[in-house]
Every structure is written in structure tokens, then in C-alpha cells.
């Protein structure tokens, strides 16, 4: 792979951005040095080496051919850092912001806001249109909606459930517009295999069998961003299982009564009837708190007694990472839709640091490798199905529930933004422009810059 990088790009500090910076950044992500954490290093498991033979060329050698590489390279989490800084202090970027994008970092107040100002030297000439932006931190959905309602905020890029959007539309008649998209985020629950009796596959299968996905989705999708019943593969992908296939997986059977009867039988067989445990959950309204309340109700239907431990995002991640939980809610969001890489989340802990099931499973790794190396789409789809079935049905490693759906509201004066299947995409704000009078001295739509 030979990537030609055009000259003339520069970092916000004025230093030129060269192929050496790109290669150093990708190497840091793909092959992190000791002491550096790179959660997405697995995205580049097919990469052999990355070099920059001259200031305008990056060469990447692959270990094997795979359809997963190009989407992995396009992932927005592949920041470009300055080699000079990385060589001096690989941890510098943990506390500092310095990029090459359309806006320069202008300020940050913990729990309040982040500010950016226009980068006049941005490599796409004429962009960005905005002079700057202020991002407001507001974890609660009600507060976010109030900010949009009061025009303190022009938009929120994650998304809301239909019930919230309907309210906004009714209250801001003609002053609001929405964009919608399937969302490359899924939601479920991690089962810590190191905690008894969850090392027993019968108990894990009972937990997933208890959940009425098909029956709950229509209702939940009105009040939460949870929407589409699916496997761990993005439902819109050609690699995703069909509905007929899905309905053969534990917990996805068409009849919930049959599923719950089987769940009770398995619990009895495993000596875990009336099991009590705590569900670790994240103190974020959408969709975690909805998921938690729903799961507890579903499990009560097979006689389980579940309480919730709802904690802020930091302690939630800390508990998942340290294994200090029994069952914990878990989301898996990705930028570019790239199922062969996205499903790595569910590979054993020894391979995937994003796996919080704490299990070893050599067969799962074999199934994954076979799928990843397959370049024929039909065969790859079959291999993906075998992998999915093993993870969700045979071993019930993870309790998959639903995929999210994005409905993003924008004040009607906000233009130039296009929704994508991820809230990680299209976030550089470079093409956004505002209608008069919100744009200051402007009188009309800006001329296309690209």
C-alpha cells in the first residue's frame, strides 16, 4: 500500500505535516511502545510494517490480504500526531491538544465547555466556514434538549429517541430539522466469566434466553436510541445474518415463552434458580439507563433477582477494565462500518482489550481468523455467521440486544452537515455554515470550498 500525501499541510503550531508524522502516528497506534495504551491496535493486526521513505509517501506492508484494512485506515480515531513530539514524549498528547484540522483548540473548562477557533491555515482552502465553536458538556438528555430548545445549542451530534424529537418538533415548529441514520453502535451486557456461576454456559444462555428482543424493540425504540434487533454484526452490512438466521440464536427465537421455559430449565439444571446478582451500569441516560431498567425486568421473568449499580462513566469503565463486576452493560461503537474489525471486540481478552467477558476461547479465535482472511464475500459471510453463532449462541459469551438509531436535531439555520452511521464521523465541523442572521455579516450561502 503506497499512500501519497500532498505537501502543504501543517500542524496548528506551524510545523509541516509530513509522511514521517503519518507513519509515526500509525506505528504508535498499531505497534504501541511499552507503556503506551492503544485500544485500537487490533484494527491493524493485518499490518506488517509502516514506513515513510520520503516526506510525501507512506508505505504500509500487510501480512495478508483482507477487506478490513482500508476501512480500518479510514477510522477517525487514527489521529495524526507530530513525530517530533512523539519521539520526545509519547504521553504528551494525553494532556495536550495539537492537530492539523479546521479548528484550533482555544480552551477547555472541566464539566463546562470546550472551545475552538478557525484555523486559517487549514489545508482545504476556504474551509472552515465558522469562526469558531463552543461545545457544551451536558450529560443529561433533558438538559441537552433544553439547550437546543432555548437555542443555547444549535445541535447535538449523538442522537435522540423519537419521543424527544417529537417534542422538539412540536415546540420548535419550523425551527428545527432532523437527520436520521442507522447507527454503528450496539448494546448489550458483558458477563464476567470469572465470576461463578457465570462460568457455566447454561447460566449465560439462560440470561440471554430471558430477553424478549422482538417484543420489546417496538416500544423501546420510541423512548430510547435502541432500535434494531441484530447480532454483533452491523445489521446493514452484507456480512450480517439474515432474520431467519438470527431467529435460530438463543434469545432471538420467535416465541419468548419457549425461550423463557428453556432459560428456567437451564438455570435449574445448573443449580442457579432464583439467582441474585448486580448489574453494573453507566450513568448515561441514552441508552444505558433504559437498557438497565429493561434488562432487570426481563431477567425477573425467569426468577432472577437483579439490582443495579449505576456509576458515572469513569468508574463504569474502571470496573469493566478491572473485572470488578458480575454482569455489566456494554456498548460497542465504531466509526467506519467494518464488521471484520468491529467484531474484534468480542475476541477473548488475550486478543481484545475491549473484551470485558474475561474468557479464553481458542476456537473463537480460529473462527475469527478464518473469516478475516477470507476475501470471497460469500464465503466470508458464511464464516462470519459461524463466528457470530459461536459467540452469541454456542458459548453465549455476550448478551447482544439491539443496535442504535440516530435521530439528530439541528436548528434550521445550521447547514452543511450530513449524518453518518457513527457519531465519530463528520465531526470536524469544517463544512458547517449558518443561515443569516446567525452567521453575522453573511448574506447568502457560502461558495463551495471543495
Amino acid at each position, binding site marked *: 500500500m503506497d499512500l501519497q500525501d500532498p505537501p502543504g499541510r501543517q500542524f496548528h503550531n506551524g510545523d509541516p505535516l509530513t509522511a514521517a508524522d503519518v507513519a509515526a502516528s500509525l506505528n504508535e497506534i498499531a505497534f504501541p511502545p511499552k507503556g503506551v495504551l492503544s485500544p485500537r491496535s487490533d484494527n491493524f493486526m493485518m499490518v506488517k510494517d509502516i514506513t515513510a521513505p520520503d516526506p510525501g509517501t507512506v508505505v504500509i506492508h500487510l501480512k495478508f490480504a483482507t477487506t478490513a484494512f482500508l476501512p480500518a485506515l479510514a477510522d477517525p480515531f487514527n489521529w495524526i500526531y507530530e513525530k517530533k513530539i512523539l519521539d520526545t514524549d509519547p504521553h504528551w498528547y494525553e494532556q495536550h491538544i495539537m492537530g492539523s484540522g479546521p479548528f484550533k483548540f482555544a480552551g477547555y473548562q472541566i464539566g463546562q465547555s470546550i472551545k475552538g477557533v478557525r484555523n486559517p491555515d487549514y489545508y482545504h482552502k476556504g474551509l472552515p466556514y465558522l469562526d469558531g465553536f463552543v461545545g457544551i458538556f451536558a450529560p443529561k438528555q433533558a438538559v441537552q434538549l433544553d439547550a437546543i430548545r432555548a437555542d443555547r445549542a444549535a445541535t447535538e451530534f449523538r442522537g435522540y429517541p423519537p*419521543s424527544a424529537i417529537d417534542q422538539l418538533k412540536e415546540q420548535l415548529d419550523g425551527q428545527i430539522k432532523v437527520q436520521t441514520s442507522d447507527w454503528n453502535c450496539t448494546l448489550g451486557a458483558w458477563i464476567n466469566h470469572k465470576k461463578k456461576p457465570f462460568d457455566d454456559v447454561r447460566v449465560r444462555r439462560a440470561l440471554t434466553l430471558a430477553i424478549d428482543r422482538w417484543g420489546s424493540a417496538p416500544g423501546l425504540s420510541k*423512548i430510547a436510541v435502541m432500535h434494531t434487533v441484530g447480532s454483533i454484526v452491523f445489521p446493514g452490512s452484507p456480512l450480517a445474518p439474515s432474520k431467519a438466521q438470527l431467529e435460530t440464536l438463543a434469545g432471538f427465537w420467535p416465541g419468548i415463552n419457549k425461550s423463557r421455559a428453556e432459560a428456567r430449565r437451564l438455570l435449574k439444571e445448573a443449580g442457579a434458580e432464583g439467582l441474585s446478582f448486580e448489574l453494573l451500569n453507566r450513568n448515561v441516560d441514552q441508552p444505558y439507563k433504559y437498557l438497565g431498567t429493561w434488562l432487570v425486568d426481563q431477567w425477573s421473568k425467569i426468577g432472577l433477582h437483579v439490582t443495579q449499580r449505576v456509576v458515572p462513566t469513569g468508574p463504569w469503565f474502571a470496573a469493566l477494565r478491572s473485572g470488578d463486576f458480575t454482569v455489566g452493560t456494554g456498548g460497542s461503537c465504531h466509526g467506519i462500518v467494518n464488521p471484520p474489525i468491529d467484531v474484534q471486540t468480542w475476541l477473548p481478552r488475550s486478543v481484545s482489550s475491549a473484551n470485558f467477558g474475561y474468557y479464553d476461547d481458542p476456537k473463537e479465535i480460529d473462527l475469527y481468523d478464518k473469516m478475516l482472511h477470507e476475501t470471497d464475500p460469500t464465503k466470508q459471510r458464511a464464516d462470519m455467521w459461524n463466528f457470530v453463532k459461536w459467540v452469541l449462541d454456542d458459548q453465549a459469551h455476550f448478551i447482544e440486544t439491539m443496535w442504535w438509531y440516530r435521530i439528530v436535531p439541528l436548528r434550521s439555520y445550521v447547514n452543511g452537515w450530513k449524518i453518518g452511521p457513527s457519531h465519530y464521523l463528520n465531526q470536524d465541523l469544517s463544512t458547517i455554515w449558518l443561515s443569516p442572521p446567525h452567521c453575522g455579516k453573511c448574506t447568502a450561502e457560502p461558495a463551495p470550498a471543495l
Partner: protein
Amino acid sequence: MTMISQDAAAPLVADEAGGLHRRSLPARFLDFIRHQPLGTVGIVMVGIVLVAGIGADWIAPYDPTANDFAAMMQSPSWAHLLGTDQFGRDILSRIIYGARTALIVGLSTAMIGGAGGLLLGVASAYFGGRLDLLVQRALDVLMAFPLIIMALAVVAAFGTGVRNVIIALTIPLIPRCARVVRSSALAIREVPYVDAARACGFSHSRIILRHMVPNVVAPFLIVVTAAVGQAILAEAALSYLGLGVQEPVPDWGLMLQGGAEEYAVTAPWIAIFPGLAIMLAVFGVNIFGDALRDALDPKLRER
């Protein structure tokens, strides 16, 4: 040796023959109703909460935690008298069961915190000296924190859940109760029968528990009654902030969080009824406490 003034809350009255005797409990209760109509309303309101909390399993028309997506956000109707929330849960049932949570937290806090404050206050007054000084300064430190701030700190340290909420609200109550009780106990300490008890060689614990504590019961009851209302309110506040009990436990404060905020316009009953429940329960406890104070205060009683 016979001690007098063992029950300051039950005044002696003269009978027709001129002898002194204590009035029966029902008679005193009827007196209370006659002289404290507002307090009686408070008793009725507290009684409703008590009945709801204790008999929730029989009274509530629906399972308070059962999701029913076919009945989401339904306005009040005959099927659901107070409507349903965003999960289709019956709000009346959740309020009835929520009374149980409020009672558990309110009464536990008042009893544990009250008992701790009572013993600490009486012991501090009885022993006096350096112990009294140390205890009072420690209480000063604890009382420097507003109730909700102290409760937030405790919950942050111990975590959420009913048990930890009770701990969080009990700790701030102890110094408040101890301070009130101590002021009464200081006067009791100087009365002759306490000196007599000392002279008889009674143990400190016997003097404190049998001869001092019963004589500070009146102010103690008033503080404890007020504490129940405060605890219900503080628990609701903690749960509203996400630091109290967690879903799907039926809890009035929790019911005001999340769905109530998000659907305040389209489904206002989700917020209105739990809010009313908190307001009426706390109001009931407070007016009952006020009436109790009036009834137990000899000066006010004689008016």
C-alpha cells in the same frame, strides 16, 4: 427507691377523689385530636403512607417494576388511575411501593440516628468535662455541613443503594439530635434524683438509661419526628440526583428523575404524582411533628 418523673410525656391529672393518676393512651389520643386538628391531619397523612408502605403487596394494582410496552405513557384512566410511565409501569403502584422505600429510609434514619444522638447527647451532658467538650466540638464539625452535602459525601464514599442512603442520612442526624437532647439532659443532670441515684451507687449506664433518657423523651420525639420528614425529602433528593436507590426500585425521588424530566410536557403525570407524594408525606410528618411539640410542651399545653 421509687423514682418520679419517669414519663414526662404523660402528665399527671387529678381524679374526682383528688388523687393523681396518668391518663390512658386512648384518652390522651382523643385529647390530641381535639386540641390538635392540624396534627390529626398529619397523623392521617402519615397513616396513609404507613398503610401504603406496609400493605403495598396487597394494595398495589400492578407489579411496580413490570414493563408493559403496550401501555407506555398512558394518561390517568380507570385502568391506570395515575397513568403509566415511559416503561408502561403503573404510577400508582410505584407510588404505593415507593412509600415503603420512603418509610424504610425515613424511619430507619430517624430511629438509628435518633438513638445514636440520644445516647451521645445524654452521655455528653451526664459526664460533662473534657468528654463533653470533645464531643461537642466533634458535633460542631459535623453540623458545619448542610444535611444534603454531608449525605452526598457519604454516598460518594460508600456508594448508592438503600442501606448506604440510610447511613448517609443517619450520620448528619446524630449531631442534630445529640445537641437538642444534651441541652435538656444538662438540666436533668442537676436534679436531686440523679444525685440520689449516684449516691446509691447505681452504674453510669443505669443512671443514663433509666433516669435521664426517659426525661428527655419529649424534645427527643420532636427532633426524631422532624427527622423522618427530612430523611424522606433528602432520600428523594439523593435518588433524584442518581445517588440514592437505583432503578427499577420504586422510589418517589427516582420517579422524578429521567422520564419525568424528559416527558414533563407530553406526559406530565409522570412527574406530578410522585412530586405530590413527596410533598404530602413530608407535609404530613411535619405538621404531625409540630402538633406533637405543642402537645408535649407543658407551657403550650396549658394555654
